[in-house]
């Protein structure tokens, strides 16, 4: 089997100003690899929303991106509080973002719904007090 290209990113919760840089980096690398623009756009948006969530809500964590000729798999694993009600969290408009970041455009409550919309597959594993892992796949 072909070797996948693997990219790993440490998402720090301490510097909010760096939130979103990992997604930017992945976008740049996908462009260099010559991946189709539609796939790049989907990956960029889905990963951006997930990365921001990790910083705002979940004390950071680690993102792993695996690129194969068939698809791009993103695993976002955080060490946050976990999601008490996944169905509620997936509702458009529902947000637990703090007020301080809303003037930057965050807190619209569209993060998880967008992640589902722009990916071909999405799975959420969550445990209260331990953390959440979201796995998403975008086909080439």
């Amino acid at each position, binding site marked *: 089997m072909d070797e996948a290209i693997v990219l790993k990113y440490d998402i720090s919760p301490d510097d909010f*100003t760096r939130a979103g840089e990992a997604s930017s980096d992945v976008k740049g690398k996908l462009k260099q690899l010559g991946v189709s623009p539609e796939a790049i756009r989907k990956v960029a948006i889905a990963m951006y929303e997930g990365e921001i969530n990790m910083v705002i809500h979940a004390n950071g964590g680690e993102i792993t991106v695996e690129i194969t000729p068939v698809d791009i798999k993103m695993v976002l694993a955080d060490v946050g509080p976990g999601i008490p009600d996944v169905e509620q969290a997936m509702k458009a408009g529902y947000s637990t973002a703090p007020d301080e970041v809303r003037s930057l455009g965050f807190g619209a409550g569209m993060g998880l719904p967008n992640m589902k919309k722009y990916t071909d597959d999405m799975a959420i594993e969550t445990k209260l007090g331990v953390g959440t892992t979201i796995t998403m796949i975008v086909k080439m």
Partner: protein
Amino acid sequence: MDKFYHSVRLDSELCKGCINCIKRCPTQAIRVRNGKAQINGKFCIDCGECIRVCPHHAKHATYDKMDVMKQYRYTVALPAPALYSQFNNLDDVNIVLNALLLMGFNDVFEVSAAAELVSEATREYLNHHEDNLPIISTACPSVVRLIRVRFPNLISHLLPLNPPVEVAASLAAQRAMQKTGLERQEIGICFISPCPSKVTYSKSPLGTEKSQVDHVLAIKDVYPQLISHMKAVGEEAWDLATSGKIGISWGRSGGEASGLFTESYLAADGIENVIRVLEDLEDQKFTNLKFVELNACNGGCVGGILNVENPYVAEVKLKRLRKYMPVARSHMDMEDHVEEMIPWTTGVQYEPVFSLGGNIMESFARLNQVERLCKKLPGLDCGSCGAPTCKALAEDIVRGQASENDCVYYLRENLHKLSEEVSVLADDLHGGDKGGQETLRILKEYIQRISDEMSLLDNRDAEEETGKHNNSGGL
């Protein structure tokens, strides 16, 4: 350095001496004399309202023309964040940045990147100055000038950090010298600006001795050339963008505050609104605010008069551009010496230009005179005398810059009174009054006075006629 330099100018040929600008100026800095508008440099804050409102397009902003860059061996463009909001269908700021290079600049340094550094420094400043809240933004030069002349109690609340354009210019100059080995004077740092207030800032800055910005171009001048180069930017565009959500947001009202990660801020735009907020701040009506962002132009910098796009459309475009950007891409630990480039090196002094006299006693006496004069004047604020309000005329009179006879209504009333007295005297004469000769003499005196007043009116008209033919008037 002229501390009252201004970049708003009048084209006297086009000025009709109407009252639009004098009524609209927020500091009542304009008078119509000899049929032409004149701006009092001490009161003017370069907000550009007179430029916006003049129906004859007689008011202009001065800024540099594109060919001013030819005198330098190496040039760096500093695009304002507002520039990105002027184009339709732009989804990547790199296109604009690459186009600037194609236009002939050797390098480009985003003002929005420097803005993120200033936001970082501001967050730190707020943390260390919790006893002096609220802190007032100093990015808008017109607001700082307004506070300097009219709100001295708020001077201590000003954020003593250089505006992003200044930090960008310092960093760009440093980088250019390191890269090319050229002397500073061979390098041209050129800001692409949404407003004339920044032109004034570059020639006469507040908070620093000399600005590192060498020239200021207008967005509307650069726009047509830039569009054609943007079309030529191909797939091989370089990744030059170094700013994120925070930097891009500075172009719109509320954007500077959004980089502070706090809820307790106020963002006001439009000079009339700014003045209201400042007056309430002076009266200490807001006690729970950390930060006050003030923009003289409606909508923020995207509302500056050198822009092409409608400010509210531009705001939406900035929101779209920033949507999937990282929160910030420029950080203070990335640049050398930046801690020295950000804080102010000189203070802002109160300039009591609105004082009526040289000291309290004199001002008090003059204040009384002003009150008395206001009672005599008709209170119509018609502008015919060339001052925006009767009270302004009264103040001008007391300062020795105008006279009661400038008021057309005042003259008319005097004439009215005189002719009444003349007719009373004429009746006396007719009635065979004993002191006939004396009455006749008084009558002649009154008639002389009437013709004197009439000729004053005639003089005014004559002055205005000559005013139209000469090129007098202006700043």
